[in-house]
Structures are given as structure tokens and as C-alpha cells.
């Protein structure tokens, strides 16, 4: 099965490409804070109530090929001016399945893909995060 990029809109008034302000991975939670590219006081928190099973953060420049693949494959209405996605049948999940000898497939994992201004974030977990505005 091929990868499928799905626009994710967990809260209202999301728009555009966000900056990643911080990542905090602790024993009790996994938390990302983003800020609006135009109004930096407008911050968004994405918080999981436990450590996520897989997280990958990469300079946007180093993911150029993956991003171009998305641009070729999908209509602009899916990816343009948007930061938050889910990725079905993803290569990352397939890699985890391979690396875990199938163990990861028992966890009902979801792959979240956040394409921020500077970093591309891949998150894999078996629970939904709480997403809220911080202003």
C-alpha cells in the first residue's frame, strides 16, 4: 500500500506554516509548542499524555525529496499552506515494523507528520494528543 497524506485539523483557526518553538520529552508527557509564522504570540500546544513510541525531527532542507514527492503526488488543496498531517501506510511505520520484527503492528500506531518552517517532525504513537491554543 502506498503512503497517503491526510490533512489534520485538530483545532479551529489553523492556517499556514508554523514554527516549532520547543520539544519537551519527559517521563510524564511529550509536548510540542508551535508559533504562528506571522503572529509569534499565537502559540499552539500539541501534548501527548505519555512518551510517544517514535519521534523524528529533521531539518526541512534534509527532507527535500520527501516533500517534493508529496507535492508531485497530491493536489495543492491537501498540502498547501498547512503544517499538520497524518500519514497512512507510511514508510516510517513500515520501518518500525521491520525493526521491531512485527511488534509495532500490535500497537495501533498513528503517524503524525508536521511540516514546520524549519523542521519536519514525524510522530508515531497509539494515542491522540490534546491540541490547544496557548494565547
Amino acid at each position, binding site marked *: 500500500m502506498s503512503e497517503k497524506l491526510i490533512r489534520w485539523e485538530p483545532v479551529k483557526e489553523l492556517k499556514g506554516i508554523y514554527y516549532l*518553538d520547543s*520539544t519537551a520529552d519527559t517521563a510524564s508527557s511529550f509536548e510540542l509548542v508551535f508559533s504562528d509564522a506571522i503572529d509569534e504570540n499565537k502559540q499552539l500546544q500539541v501534548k501527548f499524555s505519555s512518551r510517544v513510541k517514535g519521534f523524528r*525531527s529533521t531539518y526541512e*532542507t534534509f527532507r527535500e525529496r520527501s516533500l517534493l514527492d508529496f507535492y508531485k503526488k497530491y493536489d495543492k488543496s491537501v498540502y498547501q499552506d498547512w503544517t499538520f498531517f497524518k500519514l497512512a501506510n507510511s514508510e516510517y511505520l513500515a520501518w*518500525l515494523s521491520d*525493526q*521491531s520484527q512485527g511488534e509495532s503492528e500490535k500497537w495501533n500506531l498513528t503517524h503524525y507528520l508536521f511540516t514546520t518552517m524549519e*523542521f519536519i517532525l514525524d510522530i508515531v504513537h497509539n494515542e491522540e494528543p490534546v491540541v490547544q491554543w496557548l494565547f
Partner: protein
Amino acid sequence: MEEEWVHWNPIEDLEVNFSLESILDTIDGFEVLLTPLHGEKRRLKIRFEASVASFKTTYRPFRNQLILELREKYGESFCSMSLFKVNNSKYIQWLSEDSYTISDYWMLLHYAIFTDNWIIDIVDRSNPIVEWLENPAK
């Protein structure tokens, strides 16, 4: 070229196993804090002065294949240490391919940290500052 894993010894007294206390990536830098599993109150801090080029944290059971391969190649006790460097890294190779080789100009290094439940891979061009924090967590 085949990937080569070596033990990384940036500081003394590393013959301990750790749990992952925290990973913080902020405007002030990128920092991993490790707590020894047994007894000791001090913690190990691994700090890069800025956000790293790429890093990933993975639930350890999801990296079983890697651990099996390392044990097979380097011996059973190899993974009893916690800090590693990876030469001819597949992770760096993936970044090279995904960046149309732009990342090759960065002279990237791959560090790996094994804790009881998590495996952390860090790729950057800079060397981190590694130090023991003698004070217990507040």
C-alpha cells in the same frame, strides 16, 4: 560501506545503564538528560548548543532488530554500554538521499544513546558537551 558501531566515551565512569529523564529541544539548545538505573544520584547531561540536524527517539522494543544485529556482530556485551558513535551510518545515508546530497556538505556525525526503554539517535555536525550533574533532581 558497511555501518560500523563503536563505543563512545566522551567522559569517565560510563559503565552504567541509564533511563531517559528528558529530551529538551528549545531556542537554548538540544539537551538529553539521563539517569543511572541503579543507585547513583548524579545524572548525565548531553548538550548541543543548538537544535541538531536530525534526531529520533524510538521505543526500544521497536529496535529489536538493531540490537540483535549488534549483538551478533560485536558480541553479547556490546549493547550493555549506553553511548555509541556510528560510522558509515545508514541514518546519515538516508538524510543524504532525502536531501539530494545537500547533507553531505555538513560533515554529519551520528551518535546513539541506549537507555532501558528508549533508543535515541542524534545526527549533527557539532560535538556535544557531556557532563555529570552531581546534584540530584529537584
